[in-house]
């Protein structure tokens, strides 16, 4: 039983980082543009399908296939930002509803292109590491490493570079930041696009683990948002931590309790945290 | 004593905004609290009206403790404040702003009988005397001209007057005014003084916070001087203004210039 526990905790951590990358996008977008971009899941879906297409149909090697996937996701992100999100800055409810509209459009587009039939990408790397009864699929470890790296880089660049400090300053106090000469429009668009790129990257990795269907984005964004709230919206480390906690909660929860309620375990946790500390685990009082 | 503030202290992290301030306000008087910016005046009001919770000390309203009560409860008890930069219901008309403020009055007057308003054949806007009162207040505050414009369209001075009008509509026993004169033009200040006089005539106790000394000197019966949240002098305005620590702390520069 203990080995089962260890194995699934590890697994939960890995799954959690995948939630975390979306959560990171959610947190960044919220911090800078004041809206929760529920359509992030769709950009993840785009990234995933593009990767699948380039890898399975075109036959590019996986690492090569990832880059255009991210680029395309980011491109769509840019278009969406210029056409839609530009007009919903700092209007949480409108932003929420616009992204819901966008979800319905993108998902329908995916249906037209790829149908409901699931696409399961050829295995990039199969098999698993085994230590006793504990076994972790190789690809999952790779995905974990890549995600962790990207999140760390994001964190580092946001805390070190000028743009990062500008973004932080802005999220703390827009007026002051603008006085300091932060170009609001560019900064906001930049962050929206970057978060969609992150989602696209998440999607590209997702495609190497799971089968794809047009609805995947809608199902995934909820987890991302839950994770972001758990960790505390506005906190970069929090989004990773939140994702991991969510992943582990679900894994452990569905071992000791009926897995039919798996999605509930995360939610209960989120509610508990919100009531106990509204700013989330790592969030700053807002 | 209407209101007693006893060793009231408020700390924000390291900084102490109000450090055991003690004073009291008697019914019917106009008390002026003054001090330089950042001397904890606004914090003091927020503590009294329950917007902030004190770190230490007690607040007695009619000798009953009210610290820790929620703002609406304190307002219902009869302590209402205005905002330094006016808070309004921007989308609504001037009239509706004040109408919303009639909430407490109706609550006191009718209590649960307000449910009768829900009856279809009863006209909701039937409280003739309330409507009358609203119009009086608007007239008094020189807002009757713009009765039906939206609050968003007002000038800063008018906004402040509307804020005051709404506070008046609550018919408080103690009205706390946060820098009512700041940003007002000369004649607007004169209007303000008229309004304050009217209020005192309707037996409303006033506590005016301001750094405009001359204004306070004109309206206040009694003055309290704060510095860094510390109460440094109390008494008749003229006396307090002469108080050495006040001069040193607050009027020093002006004297030097004079």
């Amino acid at each position, binding site marked *: 039983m203990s080995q089962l526990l260890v194995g699934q905790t590890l697994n939960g951590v890995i799954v959690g980082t995948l939630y975390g990358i979306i959560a990171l996008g959610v947190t960044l977008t919220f911090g800078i543009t004041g809206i929760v971009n529920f359509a992030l899941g769709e950009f993840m879906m785009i990234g995933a399908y593009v990767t699948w297409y380039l890898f399975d149909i075109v036959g590019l090697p996986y690492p090569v296939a990832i880059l255009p996937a991210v680029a395309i996701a980011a491109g769509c992100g840019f278009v969406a930002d210029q056409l839609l999100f530009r007009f919903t800055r700092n209007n949480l409810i409108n932003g929420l509803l616009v992204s819901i509209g966008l979800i319905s459009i993108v998902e329908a587009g995916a249906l037209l292109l790829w149908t409901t039939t699931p696409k399961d990408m050829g295995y990039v790397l199969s098999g698993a590491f085994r230590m006793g009864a504990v*076994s972790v699929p190789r690809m999952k470890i790779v995905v974990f490493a890549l995600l962790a790296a990207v999140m760390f880089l994001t964190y580092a660049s946001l805390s070190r570079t000028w743009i990062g400090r500008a973004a932080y300053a802005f999220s703390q106090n827009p007026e002051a930041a603008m006085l300091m000469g932060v170009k609001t429009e560019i900064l906001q668009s930049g962050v929206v696009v970057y978060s969609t790129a992150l989602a696209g990257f998440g999607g590209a990795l997702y495609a190497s683990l799971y089968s794809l269907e047009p609805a995947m984005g809608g199902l995934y964004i909820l987890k991302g948002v839950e994770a972001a709230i758990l960790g505390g919206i506005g906190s970069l480390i929090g989004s990773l931590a939140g994702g991991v906690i969510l992943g582990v909660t679900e894994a452990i929860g569905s071992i000791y309790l009926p*897995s039919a309620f798996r999605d509930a375990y995360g939610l209960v946790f989120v509610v508990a945290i919100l009531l106990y500390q509204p700013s989330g685990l790592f969030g700053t009082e807002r | 004593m209407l209101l007693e503030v006893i060793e009231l202290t408020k700390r924000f992290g390291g900084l102490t905004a109000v450090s055991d301030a003690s004073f009291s306000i008697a019914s019917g008087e106009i008390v002026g609290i003054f001090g330089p910016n950042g001397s904890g005046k606004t914090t003091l009001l927020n503590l009294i009206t329950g917007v902030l919770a004190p770190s230490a000390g007690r607040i007695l309203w009619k000798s009953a403790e009210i610290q820790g009560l929620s703002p609406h409860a304190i307002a219902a008890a009869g302590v209402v404040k205005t905002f330094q930069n006016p808070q309004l219901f921007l989308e609504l008309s001037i009239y509706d702003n004040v109408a919303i403020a009639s909430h407490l009055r109706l609550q006191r007057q009718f209590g649960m009988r307000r449910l009768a308003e829900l009856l279809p054949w009863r006209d909701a806007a039937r409280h003739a005397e309330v409507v009358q009162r609203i119009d009086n207040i608007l007239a008094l505050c020189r807002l009757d001209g713009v009765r039906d414009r939206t609050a968003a369209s007002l000038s800063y001075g008018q906004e402040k007057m509307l804020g005051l009008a709404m506070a008046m509509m609550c018919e408080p026993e103690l009205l706390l005014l946060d820098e009512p004169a700041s940003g007002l033009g000369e004649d607007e200040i004169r209007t303000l003084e008229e309004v304050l006089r009217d209020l005192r005539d309707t037996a409303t106790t006033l506590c005016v916070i301001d750094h405009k000394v001359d204004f306070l000197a004109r309206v206040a019966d009694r003055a309290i001087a704060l510095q860094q949240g510390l109460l440094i002098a109390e008494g008749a305005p003229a006396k307090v203004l002469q108080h050495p620590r006040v001069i040193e702390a607050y009027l020093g520069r002006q004297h030097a210039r004079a």
Partner: protein
Amino acid sequence: MRRLICLAILALLASPVAAQNIVKIGQIEAQTGANAIYGYMSSQGLALAVDQVNKAGGFQVGGKTYTIELIASDTRGDPKEASIQLKRLLETDGVKFVFGPFLSNVFVTIEPYAKQFNGKFLLMGGATRIHDFLGTPDHDFLLRSWNWDAGPKGFGNLMVDRLVKETGAKKIAMLFQNDQGGKVLVDIYTPLFKQKGIDAQLELFEPGTKDFSAVLAKLAAANPDFLFPSYSDAHLYDIVRQATEGNYFRKFFLVRGSLGPGLKNKGEIDDYFVYVPKYFEEAEKTDPKVAKFVADYKTFYKRDFPYDQAPLCSSSCYDHLFMLIEAMKKAGSVDDVTKIRKELLSMTYDGLWKIRFDERGEEIFNFDIVRMKRAGQISVTSVDAQ
């Protein structure tokens, strides 16, 4: 509001009056939404068939040539939509033949209304719950276009039988998505396993779940002989991969799934025991009709032929149209539904499938059981259900 009313009235007037030699075929299937797989595929098969009939210049009945007008509506699996659409089909458009639904929730919602039109139209649906209404009074309009796992004649019984005989399985782990299809399978197979003395443990998961390792590990802890996972490839690919990669299971027992996931992980699989209505990968090589169908599908939809659940619904729905036309010819009428029904029940149609209906209107067709052993050696047993 008035504008809306006008719109509605306009729509009412605009709706076409039954034209002379057009046969209207209605379809109510979920083409989008969470439970759309079956509905989506069957609507594709039907659309393809209709296109072919009309391209061929229609069909002859009683000296007249008829073409087909297909009115396909998307229920999204929402009972509300379906009940509106069926009313429109039957009352406004005067449709006499309705294909679908595959979803039980949709069917039970429209059933009370539909039975008022008993004898005025035919409904050819795949929903499991249709089975309960077949042969009951005022349900002559029902035909169940998909045979069912339960009951002595059902293939469920037969599958479990073979499982026990061929593998001697004693203990089985069931893992289903918590949706209609999953619930149906649970209700059917739990008692079946009990009869056969197989001890079955059950776990459900929310549709949309992608990572199963936790629940798989949990199930594997009691080390059962077989895993009986889901029914839809949307989950099968993930479950089979994770089960084998994590070394939780190497033996699988499936109904309504496809061979795809098994083949993809064949290196890691000892036994993959699956009910496949028709083993298309093979049939395409041996049976010219199937080959033609696959080719036509590819050209019509300009996309590759999906070898998962697609064949099951698209091809059977494709057949049903031609079978219906045949029945019309035999009956010498395109609107006498009682006659046409009698013909349908008495005939055996030999298309992509060998189809016949039993006296209650339950469809019976032959199916294959495919068994893949270690290293992907595949053995196919064709079962003649006729």
